[in-house]
């Protein structure tokens, strides 16, 4: 799921203790990387709701190797998060993006086996860079690379969508009507009236793209999941857990959702660029023309989706799963997407 700023430290206490985890991790790295590997540090990074991310270092022959562990929360897969991929599938996709589409990703070192005692997950290289949007969009060190980012996004997405479907691992298919049905169900379960969401659901049901192409879709290609450096720009595309088969324009539209512009509202592509730059680079790398109306459709769907996700995260507070302040407060961010939806569907002074 899309939230990176949440984490529940209490969850890790419920399963294996940190010390056990360190021992298992050291053992796993000795088995899969190097028998002499020593674990030097282990730190929980803020992570998504359906996955935990840990940063750690191992020392091999006097050299420090920075690595990342991605695993299911507490090592166990949550059956409720049915949209997130099994971690072994995510690892396979990262490999595919790397080897077939030549997209920069953090290379996967190994997939956890059951005898590793760490649950479902995988180990990948730690890639240096920045994912925090506010820094990327504001700090002086990114000033020179910023104008190139929209082009880079288009270029990468063009190549990603060209990966032959036959080469993909088994993935769920989620064209527009599937996505809508799923989020409508979540909205109904939330049982709180949102007239603006209703307007969006109606418009999206009436205007779904006819016979879109079906390709591999990253599913969460946006600020926060793009590792950026001042030197190269996009140094790695992260978080493949929401990948699926669908309308490729979904990735372009999602990238333009105002929630990911972090205040830079007049730069629709991730708060750093213009749609024209994104589309031109996409067309060049994929050879497929972009229909801006179709991208707009997915921007509207994406905006609604994020609004519903805010209510869903609040539900975790309401039902007692996660009584954190953050989970409670995020419910009040649904209204941000309502004003975005009105700007898109019912602009003022028109």
């Amino acid at each position: 799921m899309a939230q990176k700023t949440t984490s529940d430290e209490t969850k890790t206490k419920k399963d294996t203790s940190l010390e056990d985890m360190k021992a298992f991790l050291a053992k796993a790295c000795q088995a899969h990387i190097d028998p002499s590997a020593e674990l030097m540090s282990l730190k929980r990074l803020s992570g998504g709701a359906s996955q935990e991310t840990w940063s750690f270092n191992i020392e091999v022959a006097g050299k420090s190797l920075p690595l990342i562990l991605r695993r299911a929360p507490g090592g166990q897969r949550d059956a409720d998060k049915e949209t997130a991929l099994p971690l072994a599938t995510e690892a396979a996709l990262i490999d595919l993006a790397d080897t077939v589409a030549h997209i920069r990703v953090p290379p996967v070192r190994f997939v956890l086996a059951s005898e590793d005692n760490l649950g479902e997950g995988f180990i990948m290289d730690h890639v240096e860079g920045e994912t925090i949007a506010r820094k990327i969009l504001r700090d002086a060190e990114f000033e020179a690379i910023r104008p190139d980012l929209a082009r880079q996004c288009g270029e990468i997405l063009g190549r990603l969508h060209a990966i032959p479907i036959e080469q993909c691992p088994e993935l769920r298919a989620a064209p527009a009507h599937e996505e809508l049905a799923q989020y409508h169900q979540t909205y109904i379960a939330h049982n709180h009236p949102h007239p603006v969401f209703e307007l969006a659901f109606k418009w999206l049901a009436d205007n779904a793209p006819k016979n879109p192409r079906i390709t591999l879709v990253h599913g969460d290609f946006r600020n926060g999941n793009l590792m950026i450096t001042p030197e190269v720009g996009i140094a790695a595309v992260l978080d493949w857990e929401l990948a699926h088969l669908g309308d490729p324009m979904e990735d372009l539209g999602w990238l333009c959702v105002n929630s990911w512009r972090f205040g830079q509202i007049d730069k629709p592509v991730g708060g750093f660029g213009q749609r024209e730059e994104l589309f031109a680079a996409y067309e060049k790398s994929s050879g497929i023309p972009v229909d801006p109306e179709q991208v707009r459709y997915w921007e509207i769907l994406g905006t609604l989706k994020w609004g519903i996700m805010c209510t869903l995260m609040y539900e975790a507070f309401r039902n007692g799963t996660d009584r954190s302040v953050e989970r409670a407060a995020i419910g009040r961010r649904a209204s941000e997407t309502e004003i975005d939806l009105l700007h898109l569907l019912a602009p003022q002074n028109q």
Partner: protein
Amino acid sequence: MQDLPESVEIIDVVADFIRTKLLPQLEGHSAFHAMVAANALDIVKRELKIAPQENQAEHGRLVSLLSSEGSLEDLNRTLCEKIASGELTLETNGLKEHLWSTTLAKLSIDQPKYSAYRKSLGV
């Protein structure tokens, strides 16, 4: 009648305490959650000030838009049904204005710094 301090004063001082006294002593996740906590109190403060009039105005608009009476929640549920069924559309007199007014009021409470809110106010 309740005694002083007023609820807004209490919320104000607690939010201020979190920001100026507590936050500097925290780091990592705790600091993040403390900041979210202070911001959440700000939402409650704004709601106490703004919601009474705005909810009343919203209720009045709903009564005339739907030509029916009921609680704010009931009328909102009816509005939702009528939008979903297509009975009310953006062409319906007053609907667009109602949605904008209601949403702007929500944002003035939830997140007055949000870019799209500021843009719609021309700030």
